[in-house]
């Protein structure tokens, strides 16, 4: 897709790849794909404006290019750009997953939920971009003000003597106790998630269902596997259990075309239900 002119102004950092500095971190990173060639920022703009389909972008190719690009940067830039890239790539990946999940012709509640999830991801990306853009203003102001000199002169001895006499009541042991307190590492308190009441879905339970369904039929499509399921969490859990079962070589799958039907077959030579007990242990916390 060719960069459309009206998109250009929304991606000012893309204009000057040679003057890249740490505040315009992605100014220098260009992506060259079969269907896109231009600054990374522009790619994001196009995707967020729906002028390009996220599912058509090869994230692995983008990532490879980015790693190559990083190698030419100095350390500071590298860290900044890498962290930023991770943020954006993670969001893109989320979008892509949402884009790839089965949606199909049936416009049911589930599909709508998926669309909503996608919207949320778009919103997140756009919000992120908004803050990134405004952070350039922060950088400019901080830099400008760094150069300023303010009067910060110690009080004259004459005036200092007028301050009230210091009242001191600590013994040397009090002082040491205070030091202990002051040196105690200050953990930034952890924010618990216990107050969230999202329904928990067990991957193990869902895997058991998947195994039962697969063993009972010659082949099952993923669509069939999640037919009638209304909870997104359960769809996700079943998808993860498919991946886990694939890792255990318990099933094979084929997909004839991108976004096409995912067909699953039971392929385990030896399967014991004990495997099931440890399945998805990575996801336990």
């Amino acid at each position, binding site marked *: 897709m060719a960069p459309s002119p009206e998109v250009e102004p929304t991606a000012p950092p893309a204009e000057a790849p040679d003057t890249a500095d740490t505040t315009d971190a992605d100014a220098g990173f260009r992506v060259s794909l079969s269907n896109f060639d231009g600054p990374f920022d522009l790619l994001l703009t196009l995707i967020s404006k*729906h002028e390009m389909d996220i599912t058509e972008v090869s994230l692995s190719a983008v990532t490879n290019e980015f790693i190559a690009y990083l190698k030419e940067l100095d350390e500071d830039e590298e860290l900044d750009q890498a962290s930023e890239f991770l943020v954006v790539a993670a969001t893109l990946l989320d979008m892509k997953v949402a884009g790839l999940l089965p949606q199909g012709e049936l416009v049911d509640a589930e599909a709508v939920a998926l669309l909503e999830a996608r919207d949320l991801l778009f919103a997140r990306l756009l919000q992120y971009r908004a803050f990134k853009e405004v952070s350039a203003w922060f950088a400019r102001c901080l830099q400008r003000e760094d150069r300023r000199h303010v009067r910060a002169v110690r009080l004259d001895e004459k005036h200092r003597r007028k301050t009230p006499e210091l009242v001191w009541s600590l013994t040397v042991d009090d002082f040491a106790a205070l030091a202990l307190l002051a040196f105690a590492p200050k953990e930034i308190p952890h924010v618990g998630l216990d107050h969230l009441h999202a329904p928990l879905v067990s991957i193990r339970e869902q895997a058991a269902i998947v195994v039962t369904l697969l063993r009972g039929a010659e082949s099952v499509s993923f669509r069939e596997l999640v037919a009638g399921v209304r909870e997104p969490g359960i769809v996700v859990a079943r998808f993860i259990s498919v991946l886990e079962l694939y890792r255990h070589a318990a099933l094979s799958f084929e997909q004839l075309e991108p976004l096409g039907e995912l067909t699953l077959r039971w392929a385990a030579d030896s399967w014991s239900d004990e495997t099931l007990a440890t399945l998805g242990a990575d996801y336990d916390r």
Partner: protein
Amino acid sequence: MTDDRTETDDRTATDDRTETGDRTASRVDDVGQASPLTERIEAILLIIDEPIGLVALAAAVGSPVPAVRQAIETLVEDYDGRGRGPRRGFELREVGGGWRLYVRDDHDDLVAEFVGGQAPARLSQAALETLAVIAYKQPVTRSQVASIRAVNVDSVVRTLLARGLITELFADSETGAINYGTTDALLQHLGINSLDELPPISPLLDDGADGFDEGTIR
């Protein structure tokens, strides 16, 4: 020199020529005060090491706030060379919620050379973005910031706390999560007087929202 000169001269183009008349004038709010208001304000401005707000300044010099506001305006103009005297090498700026004397920016390079020393380390891009999120979303918890930035922000928040750019505001009564906000020191570092002076960000966000009509979603 006599002490009965006024601190504020009602300045017009012609006042420069009637300087003596001005000087003998006396103002109501200075009744009972040994010296003019602008002088007293200058005395305080010379010794403070953080911005002083109008109310605190008024209390310090023992004059009503409106008179102090007016006197400050006079001083600003004076130092800028729009009063009777020449322009000064310093200026009076309202930054971070109060007034403070700064070297005029024309002379920043000169002073920097004289002072030497190292410019403070710059904030990383990650820190800048986190700072921006906190500035616009405050009060905001770390996990809320993290969900916008889509990365863990703990160490960056620590840095910003240590720099005094943000502060812990309060703990959420239910979850105990700490809410963060920006400090007056941040305003000083940005060279602005209040959060109202942050550039509007909603257009940027609205812009994005415009793209959300269902028709464009495949």
